[in-house]
């Protein structure tokens, strides 16, 4: 009988930008079991809801995660607006959609870069992050912040974008699209990348569904769930289809994210073409009383904010369920039976965002 050994992986590891720990139980080179340990980034920010008034809490909630910060604030604000029955101006909905999709572009490019670094393709890492900087420039010019935007508030958005700037953004997207095409061609066509990713970390459609996979992890296994199709913000006025792949391996998850970049560019262009004139916020008075589950599609999958108000300025409860947390059980399933050398690639393939996961 083969002897079992345990290899610790993390919390500090060269491929991980953030800390998570796995105890990998090995038989020879094969992983038979992976035991995750989390809690290295847990700050307990949900509890700050008791100390901050609900409009101020937006600043906390968008610091749940530095990568998808705008979508966190959007989801929180939508929840509060639903509880209080606030009708947000149409232009604000479109601006929120545009910024959400820019966030998704920057998150996916960041991931493609980190993933390339994880498989040892440093040149491609640099290429992806170079394109990402042009996305960050747009975010900085329109909101004032590179990674933490602070542009969403209860009742609308904080800033408007001028018509000239919107035109310029649409024109610039053509150039960015060309660069992204060149980049994703390497990811999807290169033989060495294909060889490294094909049939690694396979997750079947049934497993993806039953273990609660969300976002690109689920879509890579053929489960077509995309919360944007529920039509929050201005998504109900835009046309797009959920990107799916059927193989469920690391290559499929990479392909989903690569193709979603083009969906995002298309959505931004549609939104810029359809954006109506008008105000971008309305005055909010009173305090929320009631509860709501606010859901949205983050770059990593379904994000849920549960909010309960008690009629005062301080909410009674905020609960954030982030996509990385629900993607950990599928991840453990993917690691079981793989080779030790594939573990870093498989962990990266779910796009782990530990800052989100542990809140």
């Amino acid at each position: 009988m083969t002897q079992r050994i345990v290899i610790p992986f993390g919390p500090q590891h060269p491929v991980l930008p953030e800390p998570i720990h796995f105890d990998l139980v090995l038989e020879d080179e094969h992983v038979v079991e992976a035991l995750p340990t989390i809690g290295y980034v847990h700050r307990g920010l949900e509890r700050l809801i008791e100390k901050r008034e609900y409009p101020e809490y937006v600043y906390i909630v968008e610091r749940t995660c530095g990568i998808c910060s705008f979508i966190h604030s959007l989801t929180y604000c939508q929840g509060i607006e639903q509880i209080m029955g606030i009708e947000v101006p149409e232009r604000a909905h479109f601006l929120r959609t545009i910024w959400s999709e820019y966030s998704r572009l920057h998150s996916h490019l960041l991931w493609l870069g980190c993933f390339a670094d994880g498989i040892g393709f440093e040149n491609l890492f640099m290429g992806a992050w170079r394109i990402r900087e042009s996305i960050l420039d747009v975010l900085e010019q329109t909101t004032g912040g590179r990674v933490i935007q602070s542009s969403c508030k209860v009742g609308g958005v904080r800033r408007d974008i001028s018509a000239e700037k919107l035109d310029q953004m649409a024109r610039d997207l053509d150039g960015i699209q060309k660069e992204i095409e060149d980049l994703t061609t390497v990811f999807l066509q290169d033989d060495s990348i294909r060889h490294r990713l094909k049939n690694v970390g396979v997750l079947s459609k049934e497993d993806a569904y039953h273990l609660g996979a969300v976002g690109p992890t689920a879509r890579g296994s053929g489960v077509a769930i995309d919360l944007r199709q529920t039509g929050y913000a201005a998504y109900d006025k835009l046309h797009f289809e959920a990107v799916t792949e059927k193989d469920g391996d690391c290559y499929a998850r990479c392909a989903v994210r690569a193709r979603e970049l083009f969906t995002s560019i298309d959505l931004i262009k549609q939104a810029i073409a359809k954006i109506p004139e008008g105000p971008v916020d309305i005055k909010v008075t009173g305090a929320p009383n009631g509860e709501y589950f606010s859901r949205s599609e983050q770059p990593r999958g379904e994000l849920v904010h549960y909010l309960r108000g008690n009629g005062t300025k301080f909410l009674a409860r905020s609960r954030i369920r982030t996509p990385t947390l629900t993607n950990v059980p599928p991840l453990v399933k993917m690691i079981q039976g793989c080779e030790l050398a594939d573990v870093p690639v498989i962990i990266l393939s779910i796009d782990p965002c530990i800052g989100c996961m542990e809140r």
Partner: protein
Amino acid sequence: MTYLSKSPWILHYDASSCNGCDIEVLAALTPVYDVERFGIVNTGNPKHADVFLITGGINSQNVEIVKNLYEQMPNPKVVVAIGICAASGGVFRECYNVSGGIDTVIPVDVYVPGCAARPESIIDGVVTALGILEQKKLAMNVNPGTGKKSPGET
């Protein structure tokens, strides 16, 4: 200038940050800012590192890991606390699980402000840290008995 400040290697660790500062640390390495042209290399191994870039307000589960990483780095070494969370806890200061600043656990040489810290200020912080690293190196080479520098040092 010696070999240390000509090619300092950095170790980066996320001690309970929101990862906004972490992605800015990585952004500083990539083509737009490109600190690698100065010989600065991001290493995953604390035993190879000269500069410790650390972000976040540090929670109790991370304390031992940060101490362990710090002790594994060879002398001389400098610690750069990146972002306002690393300096004081920032917006998470009142959270029940945040100790409030890296300097509650290990000594810090340079504080980089910002939420999230911009790549320009991170580069500025690292350059300041390299000056401190150089001084620490000179101080290490002074013979405590004679007060003179050891041979071979410029």
